[in-house]
């Protein structure tokens, strides 16, 4: 019956009215499912009911445990039917229901029967179902059949078993690994798909064995792989092998490059592309290697298939980041892609062009982009804006036209994220390109005249307050700022008042006029705005006398609040009204290390749309500020080094504690980061009792207890030790967490009055020589080594005894010294018998140290090492030898 394809006509309207699933309801379908129990099965009817059940499940409907069990049991009855179509439906249904472990037993015998059936297709499907619902114990029972199935002459059966193997590898790796020989055989199969699946499984089984993967790749790249899919896999595995053996090549030729290059001439586009991409991603790829790959990608750019165009331009986009010159040949093709219907392709083309373009082509490019911007969605526009920002930083001379472009698009319609990206870009350009400052600030001023986003307005006002007073004519910004006080909501008005005050504080000439404006704000109908105006008038001396603004006032206006707002909020919530006023110094300054929820689910990877978790900033700067804010430690001098946190508790314990070792010239401070993971407890007066009996040179001088440690809100307690000045003293410390624990009522969140003193044993902690060494790299080791000179050089040889491998020995020495490996010399090529490793660092007392390590390994794995140290001080060179000798 011939029907028009998708024309909207009367027939079709009629059709749509009678959806076979119109008004479908779960309860009714479950009732219908009782036909599965009929003694005389009607296969057609049963298939229809299963279809309805599938429809429900595919719509996102869920069955309760009871419903699922009931349906499952009835479905198992259908194994009695000999109808082939119905049997196929039954297989799908069982997989969809994924029965629980205690129910699986009901179908195992039926499935096992099918698995050994003479009908190939029963075997294949039964394997897939069994593997879907099976657990480890059942798997050992059917393992024999699965191994047979892998080498079954029917490709469907073999594929079913192989793909099952890929899935089972996640749950029962030790069983699947035993199938290696069968899988190896299947890789040689004549059926393309079997080969593909077998190769994928074999690689997964062996992925941790570099030598085996290397062998696999070597043999397959010589032979012929039939399936293009398998060929793609092989290319991926090959590039992995190339990456790992990168350091092994003495000659200029890269192993397997010829294979990759050969794949560029394959007949399947998929393979060509895969090879081209693999080549572009090679480490340190040369332009000679790159050329053939770029050529095929260029051909793809004009392909009629959007997917190929997208793939090609995406790859070229990546290449452009590292080798912009290599991509310039494709510029003409990419320019034609700017008008591509698919906006993803157009955006990638634009951003690639922005990277490869030279200074002279910027203006032409901007013209093209202007036309293009009006018809793409915000998320693409953001990408373009970011590309333009980096282009501007690359060609600062072009700031005028690029800044104009940004200000033009800022005036057009757009959502918050887009506007924010533009504003951020302008701000960055103002900061980095001094000539762009004044025009940029004016663009921002114009923008806030008509800005619908409170957040952006306040951010810009804040920025204006900092940058505006430093310009040649600050007075021209006042009008824009004061307009906000008339026209905007309270949040923006308050921001504008603060900005005005900043101008007043910085520019004495403007002060009287600013006072007039601020006084007008005293009658604002919002209390925050009035409060701010009053506060600033008083601090700036607005009672008439125009005086020089004091330093402390400037500090108050421009200084940053170096307390994380989250911590301040928490402290304010915990603060109870009492005689004692709130003390801002009691707010912890350490950024919360990790929210508890994330810790508990480490296996959960961010998939899709969720943003990646952002790491806390744990720089030396942050530590230095934190420590200098504690009066007890203020006179310890400059912080030399802070170690990475060392865990003192196992994961998933009641109290999580890690320690950061802060090294000063004459002191060591242990910062214990504690987290209470029990909602029903509040800990108070938390300290760590540190026993230094195995660290003779250390004497405890101060402790700073943690007043309160509520649930899931990390806090710190500190212990400080004195040690001989400038001496790299080492020792071992045992630690005990001591605290008063109070029960918390989970319903009200209130803690009981009385607490009990308790202790909790922590793991030991060591201060080692590496703690006195800063990892500071040098860009050119040879130059640094030569210029250091041999005056304070010390050379000696050491036997390191039997070691597992050379790499292990090298790592051990690097960790012992705590120095920065240079020029990638920490990587030891597999199978090498000797290795040279270059290290650099700064030793306590700010003495630069360079180390050259030469390792050799002989037959019974005995490792010998020659250590050459150069530094600015021979005592330090000796000290390094001392560390190695005693380590």
């Amino acid at each position: 019956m011939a029907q028009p394809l998708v024309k909207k006509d009367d027939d079709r309207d009629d059709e749509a009215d009678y959806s076979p699933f119109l008004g479908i309801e779960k309860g009714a379908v479950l009732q219908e499912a009782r036909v599965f129990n009929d003694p005389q099965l009607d296969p057609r009817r049963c298939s229809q009911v299963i279809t309805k059940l599938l429809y429900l499940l595919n719509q996102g409907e869920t069955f309760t445990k009871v419903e699922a069990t009931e349906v499952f049991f009835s479905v198992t009855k259908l194994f009695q039917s000999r109808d082939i179509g119905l049997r196929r439906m039954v297989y799908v249904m069982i997989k969809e229901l994924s029965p629980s472990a205690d129910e699986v037993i009901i179908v195992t015998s039926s499935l096992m029967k099918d698995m050994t059936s003479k009908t190939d297709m029963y075997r294949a499907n039964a394997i897939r179902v069994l593997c879907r619902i099976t657990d480890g114990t059942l798997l050992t029972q059917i393992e024999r059949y699965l191994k047979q199935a892998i080498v079954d002459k029917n490709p469907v059966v073999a594929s079913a078993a192989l793909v099952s193997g890929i899935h089972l590898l996640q749950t029962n790796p030790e069983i699947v690994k035993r199938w290696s020989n069968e899988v190896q055989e299947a890789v040689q199969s004549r059926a393309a798909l079997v080969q593909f699946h077998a190769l994928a499984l074999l690689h997964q089984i062996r992925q941790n064995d570099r030598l085996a993967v290397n062998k696999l790749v070597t043999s397959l790249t010589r032979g012929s792989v039939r399936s293009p899919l398998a060929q793609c896999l092989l290319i991926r595995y090959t590039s992995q092998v190339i990456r790992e053996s990168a350091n092994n090549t003495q000659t200029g030729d890269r192993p397997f490059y010829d294979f990759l290059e050969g794949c560029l001439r394959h007949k399947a586009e998929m393979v060509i592309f895969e090879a081209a991409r693999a080549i572009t991603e090679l480490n340190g790829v040369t332009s000679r290697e790159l050329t053939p790959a770029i050529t095929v990608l260029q051909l793809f750019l004009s392909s009629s298939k959007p997917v190929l165009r997208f793939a090609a331009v995406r790859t070229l986009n990546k290449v452009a980041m590292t080798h912009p010159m290599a991509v310039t040949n494709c510029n003409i093709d990419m320019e034609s892609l700017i008008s591509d219907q698919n906006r993803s392709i157009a955006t990638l083309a634009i951003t690639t062009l922005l990277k490869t373009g030279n200074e002279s082509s910027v203006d032409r490019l901007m013209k093209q982009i202007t036309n293009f911007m009006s018809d793409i969605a915000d998320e693409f526009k953001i990408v373009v804006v970011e590309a333009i920002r980096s282009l501007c930083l690359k060609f600062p001379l072009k700031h005028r036209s690029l800044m104009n472009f940004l200000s033009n698009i800022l005036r057009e319609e757009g959502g918050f994220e887009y506007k924010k990206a533009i504003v951020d870009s302008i701000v960055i350009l103002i900061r980095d390109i001094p000539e762009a400052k004044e025009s940029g600030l004016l663009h921002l001023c114009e923008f806030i005249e008509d800005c619908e986003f409170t957040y952006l307005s306040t951010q810009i006002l804040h920025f204006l307050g900092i940058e505006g007073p430093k310009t040649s004519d600050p007075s021209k910004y006042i009008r824009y700022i004061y307009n906000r006080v008339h026209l905007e909501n309270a949040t923006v008005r308050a921001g504008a008042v603060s900005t005005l005050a900043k101008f007043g504080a910085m520019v004495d000439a403007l002060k009287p006029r600013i006072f007039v404006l601020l006084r007008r704000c005293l009658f604002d109908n919002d209390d925050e705005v009035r409060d701010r105006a009053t506060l600033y008038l008083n601090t700036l001396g607005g009672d008439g006398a125009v005086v020089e603004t004091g330093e402390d006032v400037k500090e108050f206006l421009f200084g940053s609040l170096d307390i994380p707002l989250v911590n301040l909020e928490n402290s304010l919530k915990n603060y109870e009204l009492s005689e004692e006023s709130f003390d801002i110094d009691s707010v912890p300054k350490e950024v919360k290390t990790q929210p508890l929820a994330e810790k508990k689910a480490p296996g959960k990877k961010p998939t899709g749309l969720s943003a990646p978790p952002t790491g806390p900033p744990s720089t030396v700067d942050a530590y230095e500020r934190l420590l200098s804010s504690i009066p007890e430690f203020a006179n310890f001098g400059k912080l030399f080094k802070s170690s990475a946190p060392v865990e003192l508790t196992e994961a998933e314990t009641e109290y999580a504690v890690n320690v950061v070792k802060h090294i000063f010239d004459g002191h060591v401070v242990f910062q214990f980061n504690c987290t209470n993971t029990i909602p029903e407890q509040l800990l108070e007066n938390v300290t760590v009792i540190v026993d230094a009996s195995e660290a003779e040179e250390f004497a405890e001088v101060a402790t700073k207890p943690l007043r309160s440690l509520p649930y899931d809100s990390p806090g710190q307690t500190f212990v400080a030790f004195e040690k001989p000045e400038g001496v790299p003293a080492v020792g071992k410390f045992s630690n005990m967490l001591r605290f008063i624990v109070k029960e918390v009522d989970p319903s009200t969140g209130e803690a009981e009055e009385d607490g009990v003193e308790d202790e909790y044993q922590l793991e030991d902690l060591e201060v080692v020589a590496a703690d006195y060494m800063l990892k500071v790299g040098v860009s050119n080791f040879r130059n640094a080594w030569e210029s250091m000179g041999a005056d304070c050089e010390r050379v000696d040889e050491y036997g390191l005894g039997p070691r597992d491998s050379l790499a292990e020995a090298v790592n051990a020495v690097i960790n012992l010294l705590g120095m920065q490996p240079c020029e990638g010399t920490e990587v030891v090529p597999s199978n090498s018998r000797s290795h040279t490793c270059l290290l650099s660092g700064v030793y306590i007392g700010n003495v630069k140290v360079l180390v050259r390590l030469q390792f050799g390994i002989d037959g019974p794995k005995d490792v010998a090492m020659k250590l050459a140290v150069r530094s600015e001080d021979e005592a330090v060179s000796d000290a390094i030898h001392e560390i190695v000798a005693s380590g």
Partner: protein
Amino acid sequence: MILALLFANSEGNILVERFNGVPAEERLHWRSFLVKLGADNLKGVKNEELLVASHKSVYIVYTVLGDVSVYVVGKDEYDELALAEVIFVITSAVKDVCGKPPTERLFLDKYGKICLSLDEIIWKGYMENTDKDRIRRLVRLKPPTEF
């Protein structure tokens, strides 16, 4: 991993929705994201003309087929090229089952067969079969002809 496969009708109602390795709480998010993507871009697109998008490390390839739109989402080894392959298999299997690019009604009429075909094509996030003739035979529990 093929993270999601979605069929929707022209009004954006879901006909088939299959997720692999996507947490339950993110599924709704994906569903509305994909439907919106289709509503924004699929107007006037020819049958089986592929559109492609990427979001962070995730790729999306989608198209229309008769009255229904099809979306596949993948990551890692399932990049846009692999997904194009997947969607090609899916659309040809659906056309094969329905005999032509389906109307919504026809799609629902053949729902059971379509589910079986999808079961042969994607298995727990990995592509298993690629040839439509082979899939047609497998759905009927017949061994493939090449064998």
